[in-house]
């Protein structure tokens, strides 16, 4: 799957998309879901929680691994994707459509510190080496 151009990426395999209303939507990449295998559970963050950039705020669990999800920017959690509670496999089906949580960023400029699509593609390449 090609890495979408409409969003930014962290080295820890989260994607972050700035939406028109100023919120940042976060999920994990297709490469990440492939590494994890079939997901069995997603531990969503609490609404209203304040997180620092790089802080662990959610967990995705497969049969063989449980991975922390790190906030790509600092901010407050304003929405979580409840559908993932019943169907975590949505992330496996389409990682770029299955968002995990949404944040109100403290400082939108922090997004510029993240990788763009080609930068992330290089991360994948070195992972596979």
């Amino acid at each position, binding site marked *: 799957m090609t890495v979408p151009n409409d969003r930014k990426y962290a080295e820890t395999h989260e994607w972050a998309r700035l939406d028109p209303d100023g919120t940042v939507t976060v999920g994990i990449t297709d490469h990440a879901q492939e590494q994890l*295998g079939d997901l*069995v559970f997603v531990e969503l963050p609490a609404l209203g929680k304040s997180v620092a950039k790089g802080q662990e705020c959610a967990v995705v669990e*497969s049969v063989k691994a449980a991975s922390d999800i790190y906030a790509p920017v600092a901010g407050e959690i304003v929405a979580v994707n409840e559908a993932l509670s019943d169907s*975590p*496999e949505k992330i496996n089906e389409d990682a770029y459509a299955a968002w995990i949580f949404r944040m109100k960023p403290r400082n939108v400029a922090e997004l510029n510190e993240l990788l763009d699509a080609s930068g992330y593609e290089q991360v994948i390449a070195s992972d596979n080496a």
Partner: protein
Amino acid sequence: MSKLIFELSRSGRINDQLAPAAPPAADIDLALLRKNRPLLPEASELDVVRHYTRLSQQNFSIDTQFYPLGSCTMKYNPRAANAVAMLPQFLGRHPLAPEETGQGFLACLFDLQEILKVVTGMAGVSLAPMAGAQGELAGVAMIRAWHRSRGEDHRNEIIVPDAAHGTNPATATMCGYTVREVPTDGNGNVDIDRLRQVAGPRTAGLMLTNPSTLGVFEERILDIRDIVHAAGGQLYYDGANLNAIIGKVKPGAMGFDVIHMNLHKTFSTPHGGGGPGAGPVGVAPHLLPFLPVPMVMQEDERYRWLHKIERPQSIGPLSAYMGNAGVLLRAYVYARMVGREGMTRIAEFATLNANYLMTQLQRAGFDLAYPERRASHEFIVTLKRLKESTGVSAMDFAKRLLDKGFHAPTTYFPLLVPECLLIEPTETESKETLDAFVDAMQEVLRECRDQPELVKSAPHTTPVRRLDDVRAARALDLAWKKPVTS
């Protein structure tokens, strides 16, 4: 799957011979009494015996199959050990019964403490921990207590090699430490240069297995000791692989300050489908005061318990009584039967078997993770190339071995080696068994090339075929519920 015991239940079936009728509890308030019956089956003694006997027949076990699980030391469990541990006087003893009525029992435990001290080269041993992981907890807690006693509690890091068993970092966290990982070099040893960088004033200790989880001896162990000690830390030995060196090398001589042993591995106590084990700890002299209680001491030819009151710096008790007594007795019987002469031979023959198996498997076309190194009591085969050429994974390979009548080796541990099989034959297996295993491995290898789909969909001959573990985790069904009848 056989029917569940609940499905064999018939309302009103009672085994009177096992529980005679008794008067109701008239003096207990109704509000404290149970109103509905617990969900237990009502089945005849014959039904129960038949059911569980049949279930046992669905298991692989050492008594029925070769079980080369790396890092688990699946050696024969001597029946004599079981017979002795189940002598009625031992079975009937209450843990808090007076010492005068337990001198025989206490003698066995004291002797075991002493034997373990000699074998490991440590100054003191406590038999209290009930499993390897609990032994680790005790060991790391002792390290912490020692630093605290010297005003050095600011040391908040435990160093763990990236090849370490998961219990190591989990234990460090349980003791309030942060984990710092050091990488392993291409030769299977801890990266000494990186260790030098990581060790420092915040280091409380390093947890190490030797031989390592990669099946090779940590050649620069004395350098590792010097680096950690120079930084002010303590050296912890994870005794999971003691079977490789028992009687040949003493952890005390390698410079370890605290160790734990897994009696259900090295001392052949039964694995029982997942336990119980026993994880005694041993310490160097400066850590003696911190050993977990209770311990057995000998005074004027009499044996007695040492509790916290006489060991004020002890980290405390780890169980309500004294640990897994029945397991300790079995280990004791094994140790006495093997004796001084046999103790050396354990590691010798475990190592001979491992090296022989490694050679034969390499000849048969398998790739070794560390082909230049000697095997300890175990070694690693990597199926990475096989996966690339045929699509068959280590998991598939392992499942097909079940069809050949062998329990598979450990798979996907250590995490460092891709598509790995960690193979530990142990010293109790004969050359013929090893040869038969090599033959089976070769057969499966051929099948991977000629009929890969057969291997990928294995096992075929076990009571169930490959199980859907994704579904098991997604649609959690952890307890039977009585079906609602309309």
